[in-house]
């Protein structure tokens, strides 16, 4: 499933990185500890987190993730948006909590 299909089906907000919306999603990873994501997320994963700073995008780029979903209505910081556009990795948003959005994404991907 592609990033834009998930955006459409779940009504996610697109903050940035629109050029990456056609990326294929290989699976998901949910964590707010950056080193855990660095160590264990896989290429093409959609990453669900409450972190909003630029280092999230550094990790998304280094790990070749498909997209980042920021939960609970939090908004990414401006330099994170910039990096997301540059790397063409979308930052998406939802008002839902991690547990709920993860369940919905899991249902779509399984």
């Amino acid at each position, binding site marked *: 499933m592609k990033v834009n299909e998930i955006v459409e089906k779940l009504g996610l907000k697109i903050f940035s990185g629109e050029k990456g919306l056609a990326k294929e999603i290989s699976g998901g990873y949910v964590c707010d500890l*950056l*080193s855990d994501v660095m160590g264990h997320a896989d290429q093409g994963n959609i990453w669900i987190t409450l*972190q909003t700073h*630029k*280092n*999230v995008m550094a990790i998304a780029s*280094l790990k070749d993730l498909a997209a980042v979903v920021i939960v609970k209505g939090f908004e990414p910081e401006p330099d994170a948006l910039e990096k997301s556009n540059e790397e063409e990795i979308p930052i998406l948003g939802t008002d839902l909590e991690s547990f709920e959005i993860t369940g919905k994404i899991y249902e779509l991907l399984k």
Partner: protein
Amino acid sequence: MQYKFEVEGGNFSKAGTASSEVKKILNQLNVDYKLIKRIVVALYEAEVNIVAHANKGIIDVDIDTERIKLVLNDSGPGIPNIEKAMEAGFSTATQKVREMGFGAGMGLPNIKRNADILNISSETGKGTSVEIIVFLKP
């Protein structure tokens, strides 16, 4: 091939810049993707350690056909007990760094898991030297 990168202590907005550059170089050299992944994880963690703990640091990258050698020298507080620092979950990171999602005590274990050879030497009050080697041939 040799490359050198400077790392600024405390500047999280630039954390990962060197790792990103090294990833590009390795992609250009057509290094196997699985090896690149390991190298990038190890280097990123070591780079973030400089940003989180030291005043400044230099990363020397040396690549030949056999291996990539990453040497990170920083001027910082040093590590009083390296064995303790290697334990998963042990961290001396500040509250601010932890709130960003770093400082969970997973960095050095991540480096160890992804490096073929890891050497750390440190002098309290002066700084730390981390050497990471990943073999490029099976």
